[in-house]
Structures are given as structure tokens and as C-alpha cells.
């Protein structure tokens, strides 16, 4: 077990706890950058998708894991990102470098506006209100057919950066690197927020609104900022998803997607950046794993290939139930436990991560 001997206040401020940690993350980054040289185009596409899901997941994580506000409507903000990105390019012929951040800002603005009335709600009521937003977004896209293309959908043009054209099928590696760069930027923004007053205000609102107020945190404003930043990040993810899907409709960003996003971050590990990435891997690779398993099983049994409708959602649901019952801290929580086991070997105790029951809380004066 490494003990960090702190000699300056910067030890609590800097991004990496110690040099070894910085080394491992740099190694991970190097592997991520060099990935296209080792795997084929199909897998690079899947890796890109993982990163896009992770961006969307980080957006939701900031709201759910950090600020403690449930949202069952985040696919709506992905849709806003995806549609506004393409529409800015189409109608105002803005370049991708402008339309992309603008699409995030558009989603952020929508999020902030929606946050104004909804953040007065708590728990299940907030979940229902955001659920309604997801349903509403679906309908709005269909109703605004002249602009959005309705059920026929919208075609995302190739990404053009400084005259360099990036097409998902034409040059998947370049798309992957672009998405990786954006992912890195989002991770950095996320980490920066966590180590500054805003991030601590988020945690304060999550853990105790009444004492957050007593500490001078403007709870309503903090929730609105959380919604705005969360929707900004998710909107960026949505815009990338639009380019990745090349054609998208109201069905692309439906209610199921909202729920998948939420399940994803719970399975990955609530309240951690790692959780968004682990969850994204589950979301992307699970369907792959299921189809590979099905093929090998059916061929081993000598049967013709059969498809079981809804099996992906079924397995996904079963995994979620398993996690909530046995590992509420998600995949990242399991990873931390395994790591600690080896770090402390042989002194790891079974209940090390068990949370002590919290003491009686003051009646919430909401």
C-alpha cells in the first residue's frame, strides 16, 4: 500500500495522487492512442462507440453521481446535441469546429431551462418529470418535421476539421482519435470541477441539502449549474453519436436510451469517472458478447442460428439486478476492492468497504 507523504497543499489539488498513478494513466492513454494500429476497423468502430457512450455517461454521472439528481430523460439532451449540431451545419453552414461546441451549449441551455422548474422536485418526482422530457423530445422531433426530418430522420454530413474530411467508414481511425481527444477534454473538465468549489457544492447538495444551505451553497443555482454542465457534456456526446450513426431519427434517442444511460452508470459505478467508462464497455460489448455466444452455442449444438427477441435487454436487466444486490458500487467498486486486496495482502478484511450506518438525520426542511 502506497502512503503519500504530503509536503504541500498542492498534493491535495493536483490531478494525480502520485507519480506511479500518473504513469499508469499515461500508459493507458498511450495504449488508447495506439489502439488503431493493433485492431481492425470494426473493433475501432466499437471502441469509438465506447468513448461516445462514456462521454454521454460522464454527462449523466455529473448529475446523478455527483449532484444526486436523478434523470431519466438524458437521451433528450443527446438528441438536442445531435440535431442542433447537424442543423447548424446545414442551415448556417457552420464548420464542425463551431457547430459541435454550439450543440453542447444548446443542450446546456435546454438543460438549464428545464432545471428551473424541475429541480424543485426530489427523488421519484424528479425522475418522472425528466422521464416526461424524454417522451416529449421524441414527439417534438416528429412534430417539427420540416426542420428535423421527422421519422425519416436526419443525415449527418462528414466531419470536416481544417479541410480534413473524416468519415466513419472512410477513415474510422481519424474519427476514433477525434473522439478520444474530446473524451480527454471532458475528463479533464470533469476532474477540474470535482477539485474546485463547484464540485464540492455538487457533493454538498447530494449529501445534505439543508447543511449545504447552511454552508452558503445556493442549492437551486447549484442544481441548475449541474444540469447545464451535465447536458452540455451529454449534448456533445449526442452530437458525436449523430456523426457516428450517420443517420438518426426520433427513434435513435428514445426512452430506452435514457434508461440505458442511467443503468450504464449504475453498473459502472455511481459517482466515479471510471464508472462511466466501465458502463460504456458493458453497453457496447454486451450485445456483441451475446451474439458471439449465441452463434457458438447454436453451432455447437448443430442447430441453425436462432434469435431470441429481447435477450439483450433481458441479460442487461439481469446484470443490473445482480449489481444492485451484490455490488452497489458497480464495476469500479469491484475493481477497487480487488486492487485493495492485492495492495494490502494478506491484510484485506471482508467488510473493509462496508459503510457504517448513518446516524439520524435532521428532518429535511425542504
Amino acid at each position, binding site marked *: 500500500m502506497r502512503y503519500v507523504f504530503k509536503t504541500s*497543499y*498542492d498534493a*491535495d*489539488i493536483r490531478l494525480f495522487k502520485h507519480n506511479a498513478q500518473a504513469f499508469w494513466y499515461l500508459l493507458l492513454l498511450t495504449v488508447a492512442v495506439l489502439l488503431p494500429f493493433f485492431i481492425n476497423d470494426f473493433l475501432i468502430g466499437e471502441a469509438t462507440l465506447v468513448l461516445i457512450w462514456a462521454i454521454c455517461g460522464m454527462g449523466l454521472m455529473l448529475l446523478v453521481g455527483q449532484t444526486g439528481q436523478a434523470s431519466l430523460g438524458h437521451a433528450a439532451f443527446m438528441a438536442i446535441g445531435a440535431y442542433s449540431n447537424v442543423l447548424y451545419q446545414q442551415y448556417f453552414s457552420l464548420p464542425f469546429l463551431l457547430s459541435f461546441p454550439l450543440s453542447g451549449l444548446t443542450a446546456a441551455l435546454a438543460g438549464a431551462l428545464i432545471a428551473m422548474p424541475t429541480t424543485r422536485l426530489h427523488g421519484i418526482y424528479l425522475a418522472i418529470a425528466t422521464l416526461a422530457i424524454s417522451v416529449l423530445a421524441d414527439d417534438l422531433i416528429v412534430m417539427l418535421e420540416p426542420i428535423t426530418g421527422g421519422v425519416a430522420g436526419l443525415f449527418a454530413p462528414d466531419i470536416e476539421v481544417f479541410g480534413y474530411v473524416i468519415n466513419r467508414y472512410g477513415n474510422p481511425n481519424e474519427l476514433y482519435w477525434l473522439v478520444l481527444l474530446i473524451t480527454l477534454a471532458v475528463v479533464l*473538465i470533469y476532474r*477540474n*470541477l470535482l*477539485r*474546485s*468549489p*463547484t*464540485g*464540492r*457544492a455538487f*457533493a*454538498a447538495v*447530494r*449529501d*445534505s441539502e*439543508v*447543511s*449545504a*444551505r*447552511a*454552508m*452558503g*451553497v*445556493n*442549492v437551486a443555482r447549484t442544481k441548475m*449549474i449541474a444540469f447545464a*454542465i451535465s447536458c452540455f457534456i451529454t449534448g456533445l456526446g449526442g452530437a458525436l453519436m449523430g456523426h457516428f450513426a450517420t443517420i438518426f431519427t426520433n427513434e435513435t434517442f428514445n426512452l430506452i436510451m435514457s434508461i440505458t444511460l442511467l443503468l450504464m452508470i449504475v453498473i459502472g459505478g455511481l*459517482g466515479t469517472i471510471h464508472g462511466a467508462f466501465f458502463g460504456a464497455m458493458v453497453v457496447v460489448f454486451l450485445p456483441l458478447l451475446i451474439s458471439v455466444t449465441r452463434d457458438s452455442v447454436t453451432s455447437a449444438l448443430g442447430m441453425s442460428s436462432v434469435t431470441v427477441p429481447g435477450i439483450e435487454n433481458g441479460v442487461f436487466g439481469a446484470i443490473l439486478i445482480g449489481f444492485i444486490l451484490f455490488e452497489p458500487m458497480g464495476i469500479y467498486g469491484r475493481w477497487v476492492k480487488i486492487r485493495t486486496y492485492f495492495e494490502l495482502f494478506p491484510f484485506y478484511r471482508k467488510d473493509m468497504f462496508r*459503510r*457504517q450506518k*448513518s*446516524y*439520524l*438525520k*435532521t428532518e429535511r*426542511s425542504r
Partner: protein
Amino acid sequence: MNLLELRNVTLRFGGLVAVNDVSFSVEEGEVFALVGPNGAGKSTIFNMISRFYTPAQGDIHFKGQSILDHQAHDIPRLGIARTFQNIELFEQASVLQNLLVGRHTHSRTNFLSEALFLPSVREQERRHREAVEQVIDFLDLQAYRDKMIGGLPYGVRKVVEMGRALAIQPNLLLLDEPASGLSVEETQDVAFWIEDIKRVMGITVLMVEHDMHLVSSVSDRVMALADGRMLSIGTPQEVQNDPAVIEAYIGSSDSPEDGEAA
């Protein structure tokens, strides 16, 4: 000089009059204690001062200005910090992060500069960190700096909560039962800290406390309440010997302490 002044404050919850026409003032630099049986309205007075409740009648002045125009989250900025009777810490955060939340009112950066972690943000973080370190030193919390609140024993949480209020660097500190649930030794520590908060830091203390031993050892003045009304005000000895106070503690005929212990 009056730091805090309550003028004829009344608060009703439906038909129940929780606080009835209470007036008192807290002088700068003193330790003022509120005592009384359960349901006397002590915590309700605290919640009015921190603006969680709005009095139906009367006015509350702090540094000569009415605080009724301010919202709850403005109160720490004015210079009033508080703790809670049933610890209200941020459970899923470390001790350090909890204390740093206390520095929130001293932050001058916005979320955009923080997202980019501009040099001004870093500089501010260092200053916050230093201010918090002084609190950690004062309350001997060094061993718990990076521990999560969720795993800390009750006594330590109580101290962390006091530290979080001190990190605000207030003029007036409201302590809601600082010694409840603490052992004799821990209560003694609290008594020393309250002394130091008054003498060294120059912070005025208003506290609610049931432990009469602690109250009489640290407070300059005491006010006794029962059923939302003021019974008696004066030095700890005067209040303890007031017949009205003795009568208010039902089941006891000699001293308030016995009534409290029951």
C-alpha cells in the same frame, strides 16, 4: 455591542406556537447558551436565525441589520455559521472536502474558470486549503484528514461538523447541542474549544445545550426557555436558581440538571 438581536419573535406551526414573543440579544464576544426542556423552541430559534424558518412576527437583527431579507444561503456570508443537532455532514466525502465546503462563501471563481482550472482557481484552492488546515490544527483532526465521513465514529463527526462551521470564519457561531452523545472527555474537549473559539478566534458563540455542567462552565449568559416562552435570562447560576426554571423541568423539584438527566 449587540451582535445579534431578536425582537419579539414569534413562530407558529399551524396552531402550535413554537416560539412566543421571544426577545434577547447576544453581545459581541460572549458565549450565550439557550437551555430548556425538549420542545421549548431552542432549535426553532436556531432555524430562524439561519433563515430556514421565517418568523410570523418580530425581527432578527445581525450587526444592526435585519436578516429577514436574506435567504438561508446568504446567512454564512453575513458571518453566521451553524452546526446541527443531528450531524448533517456530507457522508460520501472526505473530512477535508467537508471542511472545504465551509469555504464556499469565500470563493470568488465561477464554474467556467473552475472547469478550466485557471491559475486563479488554483491559487484560491491553496488559500482555502491553508485556512482549512488551521481549523484541522485547532481541532486536532490531522489523523482524519483524508478519511470518508461515512466511516468515522460519532465523536469525530461531531468535531468535524464544528470544524466545518469554523472554516466559514464567522462572527457568530451557532452550536446546536455540541456535546450531545459525547463522552465526558470529549465534552471537556468541547468546553476547551468553545473557550478558545471565544478567546483566541474572537468568535461569539450562541449554543443550545442540555449538559448544564458544560453550560455553566463556558457560558457568560444563559437564557432558559419553556413552551416557546422566555423563562429567565442571566448568568448560569442565576438561571439555575430561578424558581420559574426549576418549575419548568417537570419531575424535578430541586435542580434543572436532574430534570434533564431523566
